[in-house]
């Protein structure tokens, strides 16, 4: 169904998922106005939040199945499968986060129902960001997301770490968003528009003006911060470390996804003609992220912090996926994000149930011999590690495979080699986890047993792991749909992959 996005009605239709979600958040706020004291209230609002995702999901389904597309050029928000996929991904991440939080907040005594409405606000921000067809929308969406995540990071008011995480995240974030904004300004100056499509059209002819180049550069800085790409990553370890674990998971899944999907849209729609400008930069950022993330992760004791660094490394992989600027590239980005999101959800879920009073002290030693006490948990954790490592049979491998294919298709073997070699390094910290849970003896009584696992978290982990395995063994549909979706991004008719048989 074609929608004219320039009319209020059209825009409203196109934005149904976001709107539905926002309304849900508002309702939740209202409920909280009366019910905000006890753990039951917190749980209640948690489930409400979960429920309020449903209409959004339904709206999304309608749009997607109905084959909604923009009449004429997309305006302010995109209306294509790539956006829908992005929204779906974000919804999944949000749902997962909420489920993980349910038990966690009670355990850590964080009884403040606003938490969930903030999560929902953040989610809608992410949706706007990932679906933005206009830099202003992107910026505002990003701000909505950031503002709520700043707060969520500092949500554990009893913990100085949480507060510090929030402050660091906020200061650097605001700083970075200034760069982003400056970039938007210069781009607007260069092209007289903030619409991605218009910018793309304006820049398509011949040499990109310096104004545009600088704008692009500043834009990359801003986004680079959001996705925690080296050298704009320094905040990530500390913030991941200090935030409440479900929030960390939210950052690793939702925020990262939104950031990369937004970035993908920018690069593919606004700058398909400027590849020679941004490809070297993206490549450099990717290599730096992969190398630094993986190497530094080697030296971490705390699991949570190790995962923080590994998320930097994965940002590197994702940048590598963006590099080719091809359909395969955007598809790989989507696919890898899906894989990474699911796996991270599971990992952080496991981490959150393993922890006690924060997870900063969950270390290899503390999970030694986990398999003896909690075989399934150990199994899930191992699967996640292998998936993060990109081991065949897991979703992670499919994602990595797609990335490698994308760069190889673009004749950029060097990047591919860097990817695999750094993956090898990552084996140096993923495998010890598997070893610890299976091959080492319990370190004693104080080891984390996670007595009485909260059921929602368990369900989340189980589902995520199941999908990770399933998609790893039968990747055909995942790959195919990702590539189809990718086809909708970027200037129409971007070259299809050689010999793709349908």
């Amino acid at each position, binding site marked *: 169904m074609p929608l004219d996005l320039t009319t209020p009605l059209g825009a409203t239709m196109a934005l149904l998922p976001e709107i539905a979600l926002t309304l849900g958040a508002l309702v939740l706020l209202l409920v909280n106005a009366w019910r905000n004291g006890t753990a039951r209230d917190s749980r209640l609002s948690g489930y409400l939040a979960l429920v309020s995702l449903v209409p959004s999901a339904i709206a999304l389904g309608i749009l997607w199945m109905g084959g909604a597309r923009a009449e004429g050029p997309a305006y302010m928000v995109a209306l294509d499968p790539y956006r829908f996929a992005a929204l779906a991904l974000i919804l999944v991440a949000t749902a997962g986060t909420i489920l993980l939080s349910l038990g966690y907040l009670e355990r850590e005594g964080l009884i403040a129902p606003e938490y969930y409405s903030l999560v929902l606000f953040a989610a809608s921000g992410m949706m706007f960001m990932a679906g933005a067809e206009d830099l202003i929308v992107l910026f505002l969406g990003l701000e909505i997301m950031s503002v709520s995540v700043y707060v969520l990071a500092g949500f554990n008011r009893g913990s100085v770490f949480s507060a510090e995480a929030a402050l660091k995240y906020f200061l650097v974030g605001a700083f970075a968003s200034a760069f982003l904004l400056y970039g938007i300004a210069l781009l607007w100056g260069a092209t007289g528009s903030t619409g991605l499509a218009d910018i793309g059209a304006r820049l398509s002819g011949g040499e990109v003006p310096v104004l545009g180049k600088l704008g692009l550069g500043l834009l990359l800085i801003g986004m680079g911060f959001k996705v925690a790409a080296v050298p704009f990553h320094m905040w990530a370890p500390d913030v991941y470390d200090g935030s409440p674990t479900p929030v960390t998971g939210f950052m690793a899944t939702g925020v990262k996804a939104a950031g990369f999907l937004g970035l993908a849209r920018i690069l593919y729609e606004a700058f398909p003609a400027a590849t020679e400008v941004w490809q070297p930069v993206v490549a450099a950022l990717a290599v730096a992220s992969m190398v630094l993330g993986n190497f530094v992760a080697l030296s971490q004791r705390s699991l949570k912090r190790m995962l923080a660094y590994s998320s930097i490394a994965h940002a590197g992989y994702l940048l590598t996926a963006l590099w080719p600027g091809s359909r395969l590239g955007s598809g790989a980005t989507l696919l890898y994000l899906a894989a990474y999101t699911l796996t991270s959800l599971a990992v952080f879920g496991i981490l959150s149930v393993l922890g006690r009073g924060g997870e900063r002290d969950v270390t290899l030693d503390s999970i030694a011999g986990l398999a003896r006490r909690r075989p399934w948990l150990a199994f899930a954790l191992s699967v996640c590690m292998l998936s993060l490592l990109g081991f*065949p*049979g897991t979703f992670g491998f499919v994602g990595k495979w797609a990335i490698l294919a994308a760069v190889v298709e673009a004749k950029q073997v060097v990047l591919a080699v860097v990817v695999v070699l750094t993956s090898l390094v990552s*084996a140096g910290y993923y495998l010890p986890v598997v*070893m610890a849970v*299976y091959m080492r003896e319990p370190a004693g009584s104080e080891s984390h047993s996670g007595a009485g696992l909260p059921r929602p978290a368990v369900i989340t982990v189980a589902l995520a792991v199941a999908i990770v395995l399933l998609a790893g063994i039968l990747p*055909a549909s995942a790959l195919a749909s990702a590539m189809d979706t990718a086809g909708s991004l970027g200037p129409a008719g971007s070259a299809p992959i050689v*010999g*793709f048989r349908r």
Partner: protein
Amino acid sequence: MTQFLASIGFDRWILHVLLVLPLVGVIPVLLGPVAMARRTALFVTVVEFVLSAGLWWAVNTTPGTLQLTSSMAWIPAWGISYAVGIDGISLTMVLLTTLLMPLCVLGSWNYITERERGYYVMLLTLLTGVLGVFLATDLFLFYVFWEVMLIPMYFIIGMWGGKNRLYAAIKFFVFTMAGSLLMLVAILALAWAVAGRTGTLSFAYEHLLTNSHVVGGLAPWLFGAFALAFAIKVPVFPFHTWLPDAHVEAPTAGSVLLAGVLLKLGTYGFLRYAVPFFPEVAASPWVTNLVLLLAVIGIVYGALVAMVQPDIKKLVAYSSVSHLGFVMLGIWAATVQSIEGAIMVMIGHGLSTGALFFLVGMLYERRHTRDISAYGGLAKVVPVFSLVFTVVALSSVGLPGLNGFIGEFLVLLGSFRVHPWATGIATTGVIFAAAYLLWALQRIIYNKLDKRENESLTDLSARELVVMGPLLLGILWMGLYPAPILRRIEPAAVRYIETLRGPLGFQGVSQQTPVVPR
């Protein structure tokens, strides 16, 4: 026999059954009571062997091409399919694997006492993985099996291994992965290069094989990536150091499978992929000389280092390095004899080294030490064990009439025409082999029985005899009447050489003129 097999449609389902059956077997092992785990595993592996034995008649090896091929779309958009096939070479490897597997289960019967279920699950999974590598005819599938096979072995070493098992396990994993990851990139690059030229993206073996020449300047790099992956697995000096650690730490069955099967994956990879895909590179003097050098170093070096090992398992491990050197030499000589010899060495090494590890394991179960110096004079207390040990050791030494000789003889005979010097040096390996094995033999079963603990050793039990029996039979059979095996290998070997003849032939293929003109 052949008619019977045809009548039950054997050739249509056997390969898939072989791949699936172990995984199916995993379920009862997991769900059944712990006590039943080993029995179930034994049952499954025996059935597997019986089924695979049918291949001996079912596979028509005369064309030398892949037989019993069947393909099923897996990721159609990417030209990836679940495709399997078998030829003379893989036939022997498959049979070797399926033969060793039940023996491994029997060999672990009392050795594994804790987490039995998991252990046998790992064994069965490993079986599927290994068979998959041998049977896959789609590079993606091949790679997946190649990697997946790592996990069970990793756990077998890491969970049921010795004191230093964690180090050994991760070393094994990382070494292997280091090679295979680069190979992954190479596979992709190859596929895309071919796709760019032919317009069809496909990972099917034959497709890539027939078009691999289009990669042009990329070939050396791709070959390098493949070769590295396989060289680490073989292992070729200097990538061999993971092997001793893995062998020493792994439980008996683990060592047996490592030596008996997993090492063959590397040489098999060279035979099946690395060399046929990039014959020009493989044939280039630079590469040839390098490989020859490493092979010869491996032979002599492995033997010398094995000689001075205080630990029996380490000794056997290094002997593997030495033996596999012969295989590399044979592959690069690329004459009919050398290729067949290489494969015979692969099989023979699988039997005799496997047997050696079993015997070491049996000693270990009795005395809980692998220290050679802890033994001596055993022939007095455990004559049967000593007899078996002697026979196996001699077969590994390459005593004519036993299996070891056939392979080494053919390899050297075939290679000498092509690379006289390398072969000459390699031949000294037979001396060193005798040196280290006989010395070990003497220190273990001969000399004075001066350790009190050894006086009460019990001789081989019936179960252990059952384990050794098939191996001994195989050793004798291969040594005395290898013709049937050779007959099945030959066409594939010839075809292999054909593929190399390509634009610039292998120097090995060209007929040599006598040293002195008439």
